[in-house]
Structure formats: structure tokens, C-alpha cells
């Protein structure tokens, strides 16, 4: 069996929480097997199949966690399409179209570049290096943020819809594509970009999770046939176990992070990424 159940549990738990914490799940999925001496490489077809299952679980958890929001957003999108305008006071419609505008460039870049970038940056060494870069990016986002860190009142969706322009939405969405490089965190760069366009930490985290759901879900759905096809032979059992573990940690992570960012900043994650990236880079060099 290419992935044992024990490895599936460890990688599933890791994937679930590192996908939502701004610390790069892909980077950790590349570095950890190397550190533990496991013969698992990110471009192995069975490992990609395994990742599909864990990503799908994460996307479903995100969808479930924010299901009321998604329902409102979808209704808002429908309303605006029917009326052929986004009413100025229709927060749900505005937020929905901001998410669409953000998802299109990320989706396009992901579709066109994913395979190439995965091939180029496949090694654990490069993942460790980019984990350091991720830490620096998070530090920079906190340093250059437009809004002082403070608790805010009112509806978060309303704040997001008011503060993000269409251009900002495109920019924040596009920067998600940086997460195709193992070591760069999707939620990290999205939250960082959210801070730069004037969101608070809480709103940036919320926007990042909403923005991540369609991308992670679509990426997983696109590769779902591989899980049920011949590539999934021998890996479906561990993939299911890994997916369940990922679902549990993803749920706990999103609950924790939504509270954490009400009063806290990206700085601890930046410090972790910098330290872990540096330590792993030195370890792989020696």
C-alpha cells in the first residue's frame, strides 16, 4: 500500500489544520514526509489522489461552517442577476460578486499553471525556502496594513462589501495563485492582501475562508475522477481515513481561527513560518 493508515491519519490531520491556518498545507505535506523519511512525494499520482480526498473534506467543512452565509450569498447573486444590477444596499450580492471576481483569476491561473509549478517546486528544500518567504509576507502584510488592529462592530459582510473594491477583489483573488507554490499559504496571502486593502484581521480571515471554498472545492472536484479511477486503487481506504481526519481538524481550525482573529494578528504564524522554514532549510542543507 503506497500510503499506510498511520501516514494517512498524520497527513490528514496536518492537511485539515494547515489548509486553514496561514502556514501552507502543501508546503507541510511536502516537508513532513521528507523529515520523517517517508517515501511519499508530492507528484506521485497516488499522493495527489490522497490530497484530492483531504481537500474535498476541507472544502465541505468550510461550506458547512459558512452554509448560512453561502445561502445568503447565492440568493444575493440570484437577485442581482434577476434585477441586472447590484443594489447599493445589497451586501450579499456585492459580497457574492466580489467572491466571483476574486475566484476567476485564481481559478484560471490554477488551471493553467498548477501542473508546471508543481513540477518546478516539487522538492522539500524549495518548500522550506518558500515557507520562510511566506513568513516574511505575513510580517510585511501586518506591517503595511491599512487599518489599525482593533475589534469592530456591525455585520462583517457589510464591512467587507464596503471596503473591498472590484479591483481589490481581483487583486486579492489573483494573489491566491501564489499558493500553487508549495510553502506559500493560500489563506496567508489572502488574509495578508485583505489587510493591505483595508480589512481587519477578523474580516480578512472571513473573506479568505469564503474565497477559499470554491477554489479548494473546484480543484478537488476536478480531480475526483482520479480518486475513483485506477489511480485510486490501493489508496482509497487511507484517503477516506485521511479525509475524515482532515475534516475534524479543518472544523476545529476554522472555529478557532474565526475567534482568534477577532483580537489577534498574523504575527505568530509569520514567526512560525519563518522559524520552521529556516530550520528545515538548514536541516535539508546539512
Amino acid at each position, binding site marked *: 500500500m503506497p500510503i499506510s493508515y498511520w501516514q494517512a491519519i498524520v497527513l490528514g490531520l496536518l492537511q485539515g489544520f494547515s489548509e486553514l491556518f496561514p502556514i501552507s498545507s502543501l508546503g507541510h505535506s511536502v516537508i513532513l514526509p521528507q523529515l520523517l523519511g517517508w517515501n511519499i512525494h508530492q507528484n506521485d499520482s497516488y499522493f495527489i489522489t490522497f490530497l484530492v480526498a483531504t481537500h474535498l473534506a476541507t472544502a465541505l467543512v468550510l461550506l458547512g461552517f459558512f452554509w448560512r452565509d453561502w445561502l445568503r450569498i447565492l440568493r444575493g447573486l440570484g437577485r*442581482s*442577476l434577476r434585477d*441586472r*444590477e*447590484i443594489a*447599493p444596499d445589497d451586501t450579499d450580492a456585492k459580497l457574492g460578486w466580489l467572491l*466571483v471576481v476574486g475566484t*476567476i483569476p485564481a*481559478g*484560471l491561473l490554477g*488551471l*493553467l499553471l498548477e501542473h508546471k509549478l508543481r513540477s518546478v517546486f516539487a522538492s522539500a528544500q524549495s518548500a522550506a525556502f518558500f515557507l520562510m518567504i511566506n513568513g516574511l509576507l505575513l510580517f510585511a502584510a501586518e506591517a503595511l496594513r491599512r487599518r489599525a488592529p482593533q475589534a469592530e462592530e456591525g455585520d462583517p459582510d457589510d464591512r467587507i462589501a464596503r471596503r473591498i473594491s472590484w479591483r481589490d477583489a481581483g487583486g486579492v483573488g489573483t494573489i491566491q495563485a501564489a499558493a500553487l507554490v508549495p510553502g506559500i499559504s493560500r489563506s496567508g496571502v489572502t488574509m495578508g492582501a485583505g489587510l493591505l486593502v483595508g480589512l481587519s484581521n477578523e474580516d480578512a480571515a472571513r473573506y479568505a475562508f469564503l474565497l477559499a471554498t470554491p477554489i479548494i472545492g473546484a480543484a478537488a472536484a*476536478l480531480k475526483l475522477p482520479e480518486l475513483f479511477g485506477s489511480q485510486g486503487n490501493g489508496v482509497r481506504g487511507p484517503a477516506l481515513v485521511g479525509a475524515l481526519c482532515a475534516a475534524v481538524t479543518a472544523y476545529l481550525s476554522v472555529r478557532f481561527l474565526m475567534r482568534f482573529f477577532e483580537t489577534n494578528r498574523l504575527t505568530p504564524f509569520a514567526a512560525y513560518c519563518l522559524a520552521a522554514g529556516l530550520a528545515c532549510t538548514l536541516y535539508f542543507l546539512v
Partner: protein
Amino acid sequence: MPQPGRIAFRCLCDRRTESVSCAVVERGRLLVWLAVLVGLALIALAVVYWAEPAKSLPSWLPGHEAGSNHHHVKHGIASFLLGLACLVFAWFRSAGPRPRSAAA
């Protein structure tokens, strides 16, 4: 507050700025037609990507590969999404004038 894209259409009733409005409306219409054409072309391109193997794609298209039977499904999805986005843009952009509410 009206959106910038709408201003052109709403100005139609204003006789004092009629000539300016007409020019802006014409530009708006042109943009709508352009978006529709590009949108339809991209959706047609998506169908080509899904239906034809890489070897049968025109050589100027990204993804053309002599002798390859691979279908560029992802290219097709990307093209389809872009086409859909163009059509949605045209849908919003071509909305006619709306009665302003009393509060506005």
C-alpha cells in the same frame, strides 16, 4: 448611488447633455456587443478544447501538440469560465434605465 456603468444609460433623459450621453451610450453598447462576442467565442473555444485532442487543435492555440491524443480539459474549463464572465458582464452592462426610488 448609481454605479458608474449605469450612468451612461440614465443620462438619456437629460436633454442638456444629450450629445454627450449619446456618445457614451454608443460606447457602452459597443462594449456590450464586444463582451457578448468574446464570451461566445470563448465558450466555443472551450467546446473545441473538450472535443478535440491536442494534435487536432489549430497550431496557434495554446495546448497544440503534434501527435498528442490528450484532451486539454482544464484549458476548456478556463476558456468556458472566461466566456461566462464576459456574458455576465454584458448582462449587467446592458440593463436599461431604472426608475429611481424616492429616497435616492
